[in-house]
């Protein structure tokens, strides 16, 4: 064993620079890997832990009614259901509420509960995570505490229906199933007096807040559908708000999913580059030390022992750096946690996670082991006598690339190209690195263009249809409304865009979006395959759902609303991530085949510069009762800024990371090249080439591979990036991405990458300066 260490140590000492560069790559890989493992293995697990801790439900349902008969019916249904293990029904109020948040507006269904009731629930207990001495006011989900203006003691104005009420914030709560606008509904707790005030003033609708635990949580969606079905069949026209474990657990972790997906991709990319680089290091080591290995072999060392020494050399260093990298990820984790918390809204306490740590280190060690093991096998083929005699086996040249006699290229470029052609291995590494990095670059570009600079495409893809304002009127006053719209000059376009709940018979609850004419929609990309429904017997369903249920375009689907079933031909697939891929499109006539509409929501496009809030208010005043309007722009701004800042950080991080990776890979390649070409550089200097010329040649010799692979990488990436991003976002119902790929940005970024690489190589090859022609005389 000692012998191995002896060889390993002496190798390490002689290759400090290379070792350091590989160490950095390994460090980064381990860092990212550990982050990813922590995010994917434990971060989401946190949801489960809290779910258990608070005995949270699997299906949550708020039924808008003050009739005890309804309550009893629910109880009876649940008592008789074999699947239900535990449930809890409490009186509450439910209403659509909007309030200012993060510079925008949040609009979602709020469940108002009495604080005392809420914190003592048997199922779905609501935990108070931050309390204060204020005795009268409201408790909000902890998610909203990231807004500077939402702090204990401050006032918050809630728009409950058409009434605006101010409340003092008393503290924050953690509610698993209803703790974020991402889970369809949100709970807010009132102190006794405020709760009574709400009850007396009848600002909001009474409701029964039901939380159910079931045996098999994977069936939560089906259970949700069947429970609602049984309620609405019995009491048609009753309003319900509901969600399920499956929906909440994924919707609260969208950003975690995106982030860990990106980190994972980066981690494997860096690990792969490290693998390639280490392999080439080992191959070079063998080439350079052919003689020494020959001597060792002649001295009685077995190939196995020499390979072991190499393994120890690399594993030793990478073990330390991988552990350090994984350790360092704990320094970055708090920042990521903060970013995530703005979306998940579930507190996460950072602690040491041994399993991800071990896995990350083990994976890196395994990669390094494989790289060294596979590339060091040629040691076995070395014959001691041959090795000692010949030393480094000179390259076997077969062709004179770029004959100077015939070329019209400038001398230095021609010589650089000769070098390029003689070092295929280097070119392969360069190509692999550049291909991967250009993918990263294109991704960054995609994010910059579609999310950071202009978030419209991102919003359109995630939210689906967006307009300036959404106004809901009762069906009776819709004609009057449309007439007002026609007369109003500020209105550019108005169209029915109403969402109602339907069920796929034998499947999940599908949110059906109705419109008279889908060609009026602002975002025609909603339909990703086939076409929008045109006739009353057609529907378009979410692509993700269709895939799950194996539905085909042209096939039939049975939908159900208000207890009436109808069959529809599937005319196309859509993607709207609002309901995580559980929705369909119907024409108004199509829906009418099953049920009528009590309310109609219209989307309104206004002329630029129109004050949306003012417009909404005016319309509400004109029409009178039953009008509810939402400033969609404000809502989007509120929720999207979180994603934009998250993306900005991710993009910055991956661009910096890419540049670091380039520098280290190039460092290793240039070093190897300088070593291999020491003799040639000596002769060149002797015959009168200057350092500058040689540096240029070195840098230029990398350029063909760099330019070709960057160009190819960027071109290929431009085509595959959308499907690739769709793969990442599949979880939120995105099947097809239609992000704009900016050719200009890609060209600029690609050129930048090439220029950066060129400069980096120039800088790194500055060492040639030291390579004096005198060294040729070493044999004297």
């Amino acid at each position, binding site marked *: 064993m000692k012998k191995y260490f002896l*060889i390993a140590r*002496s190798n390490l*000492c*002689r290759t400090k620079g290379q070792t350091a560069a590989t160490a950095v790559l390994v460090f980064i890989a381990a860092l990212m890997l550990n982050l990813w493992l922590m995010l994917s293995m434990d971060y989401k697990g946190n949801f489960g832990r809290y779910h258990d801790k608070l005995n949270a439900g699997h299906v949550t349902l708020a039924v808008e009614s003050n009739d005890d008969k309804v309550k009893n019916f629910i109880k009876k249904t649940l008592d008789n259901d074999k699947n239900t293990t535990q449930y809890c029904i409490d009186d509450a109020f439910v209403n659509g509420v909007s309030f200012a948040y993060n510079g925008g507006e949040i609009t979602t269904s709020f469940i108002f509960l009495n604080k005392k009731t809420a914190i003592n629930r048997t199922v779905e207990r609501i935990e108070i995570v931050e309390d204060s001495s204020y005795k009268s006011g409201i408790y909000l989900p902890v998610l909203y505490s990231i807004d500077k203006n939402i702090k204990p003691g401050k006032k918050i104005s809630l728009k409950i229906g058409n009434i605006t009420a101010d409340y003092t914030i008393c503290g924050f709560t953690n509610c698993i199933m209803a703790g974020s606008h991402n889970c369809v509904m949100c709970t807010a707790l009132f102190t006794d007096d405020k709760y009574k005030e709400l009850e007396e003033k009848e600002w909001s609708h009474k409701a029964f807040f039901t939380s159910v635990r079931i045996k098999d949580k994977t069936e939560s969606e089906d259970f949700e559908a069947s429970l609602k079905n049984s309620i609405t069949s019995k009491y048609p026209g009753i309003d319900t708000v509901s969600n399920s474990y499956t929906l909440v657990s994924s919707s609260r972790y969208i950003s975690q999913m995106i982030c860990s997906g990106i980190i994972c991709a980066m981690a494997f990319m860096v690990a792969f580059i490290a693998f390639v680089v280490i392999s080439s290091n080992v191959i070079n080591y063998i080439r350079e030390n052919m*003689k*020494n290995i020959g*001597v060792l072999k002649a001295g009685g060392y077995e190939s196995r022992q020499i390979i072991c020494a190499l393994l120890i050399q690399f594993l030793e260093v990478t073990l330390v750096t991988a552990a350090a990298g994984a350790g360092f990820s704990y320094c970055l984790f708090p920042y990521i946690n903060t970013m995530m918390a703005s979306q998940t809204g579930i507190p996460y306490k950072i602690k040491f996670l041994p399993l991800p740590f071990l896995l990350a280190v083990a994976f890196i060690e395994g990669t390094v082991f494989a790289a060294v093991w596979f590339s060091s096998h040629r040691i076995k083929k070395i014959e001691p006598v041959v090795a*000692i*005699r*010949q*030393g480094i086996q000179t390259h076997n040249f077969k062709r004179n690339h770029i004959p100077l006699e015939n070329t019209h290229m400038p001398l230095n470029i021609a010589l650089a190209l000769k070098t390029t052609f003689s070092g295929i291995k280097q070119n392969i590494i360069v190509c692999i690195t550049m291909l991967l990095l250009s993918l990263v670059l294109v991704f960054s570009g995609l994010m910059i263009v579609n999310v950071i600079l202009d978030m419209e495409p991102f919003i359109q893809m995630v939210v689906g249809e967006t307009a300036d304002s959404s106004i809901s009127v009762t069906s009776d006053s819709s004609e009057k409304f449309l007439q007002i719209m026609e007369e109003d000059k500020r209105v550019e376009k108005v169209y029915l865009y109403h969402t109602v709940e339907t069920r796929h018979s034998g499947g999940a609850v599908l949110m059906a979006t109705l419109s008279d004419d889908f060609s009026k929609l602002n975002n025609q990309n909603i339909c990703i395959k*086939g*076409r929008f429904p*045109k*006739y009353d*017997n*057609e529907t378009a369903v979410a692509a993700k759902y269709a895939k799950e249920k194996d539905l085909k*375009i*042209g*096939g039939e689907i049975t939908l159900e609303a208000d207890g009436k079933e109808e069959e529809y*031909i*599937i*005319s*196309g697939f859509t993607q709207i991530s609002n309901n995580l891929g559980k929705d369909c499109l119907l024409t108004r006539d199509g829906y009418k085949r099953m049920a009528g509409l009590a309310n109609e929501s219209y989307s309104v496009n206004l002329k630029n510069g129109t004050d949306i809030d003012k417009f909404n208010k005016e319309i509400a005043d004109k029409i009178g009762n039953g009008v509810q309007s939402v400033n969609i722009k404000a809502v989007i701004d509120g929720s999207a800024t979180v994603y934009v800042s998250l993306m900005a950080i991710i993009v910055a991080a991956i661009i910096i990371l890419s540049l670091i990776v380039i520098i280290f890979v190039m460092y290793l390649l240039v070093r190897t090249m300088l070593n291999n070409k020491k003799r040639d550089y000596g002769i060149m200097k002797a015959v009168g080439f200057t350092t500058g010329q040689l540096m240029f040649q070195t840098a230029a010799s990398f350029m063909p591979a760099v330019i070709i692979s960057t160009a190819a990488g960027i071109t290929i990436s431009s085509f595959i990036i959308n499907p690739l991003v769709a793969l990442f976002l599949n979880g939120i119902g995105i099947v097809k991405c239609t992000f704009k790929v900016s050719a200009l940005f890609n060209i600029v970024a690609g050129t930048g990458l090439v220029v950066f690489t060129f400069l980096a190589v120039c800088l790194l090859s500055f060492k040639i300066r030291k390579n004096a022609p005198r060294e040729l005389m*070493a044999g004297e």
Partner: protein
Amino acid sequence: MKKHIFLTSFVFAFIAEITMLVIFAVQKTGNWQDSVMVNEIVQSVKENWDKIEDYKDSTGISYTVIDNGGTVLYRTGAGLSESINEAVIHRDTILNIEKDGIIAGKVIIYNNSAQEIKLWKHKVFTVMLAAVFVQFIICLVYIIYLEYIIIRPFYKMKSFAERIAGGNLDIPLEMDRHNLFGAFTESFDIMRAELKRAQAAEAEANASKKELVAKLSHDIKTPVASIKAASELGAALAGNDSVRESYLQIEHKADQINTLVNNLFTATLEELKQLSVAPCDIESRELKEMLEGSDYLHYADIPVIPECILYADKLRLQQVFDNIFSNSYKYVNTKIDVNVLMEEGRLKIIIEDYGGGVSEEELPFLKDKFRRGGNVKDIEGAGLGLYISDYFMREMKGGLVVGNGENGLEVTVVIPLSGGI
């Protein structure tokens, strides 16, 4: 290498063919109908039923519309089934058009699967042909390649082999410093050098100890002489015998000390002769530092020293300069001129002060042992410096010339150039 390319491309082509075959086998042929399109036809015909004569198709599918009586109301083209029976024979799709709950007519969607199968066959044929062609090209290229790579070079190889047989394989194995033990042997070398230096330093210390003894013993002689003179005077003036006897005793003992000191001095000086002078090659630019080091009062401007390699003992040369400068400081304490002259393989350093020099009679003896010039006065000294300096310079195959210059004493230190003699 090329073989791999061939094999892989061949395998790829083969895999591609198999994949295509599998795809063709598995893929469903055009035996299905776009129900959305059909629905569109039915719905649009229904909408336009009342004005069917103005109706225009927008789907591109071939069909006919007939009423309950079998009259053709609309057709997209000729050659389609125009009655229920024809449609049944042709396996066409027949759909009812309902108007207000009553069947008003029928749409007969033309079954074009025969055509599609034909298209399909055509496609399969083209693709397979292309694949086979690609394979053929690969083989052809490979055969041409083999011709170039194996058959032609085969003849060339014969002569090449002979040359290899005669080639030299005797490049000697040399262990360069990049090997495993390079650093180790190098540090051994450094260790040896360090030891050597330490030894030299010890010898030097010994020598300077002896020099000190020589100097001291010389210095002792002066007070002893005074004691002798004083006691002589005492004896002459003594009142009584016993006092005179005591003075004489003192004088006698002083004589004895003088002899002893003389002996000691001579003995050390003899040994001093063995003071080692070990000249070696030094660069002339080092002289500047040495002169600046000696001239610590900065009385002189050290001139530019021509670049060359000198043959001198750096330590001894420094001592010579020290001596010259300290003498000048001691006796005259004036500005000093330093000039450098390159001459016949020697470098002359001429150092002159502004003290007016010494008398011509004294000049020849300045370099003698214990000789001190007339301007000694009360200044302490052994009169030994120039003697030893001269000795050092001669040992270096150079010399020390003392003379009177224009302004004062001029000492010329002659240092030989390396290889100059």
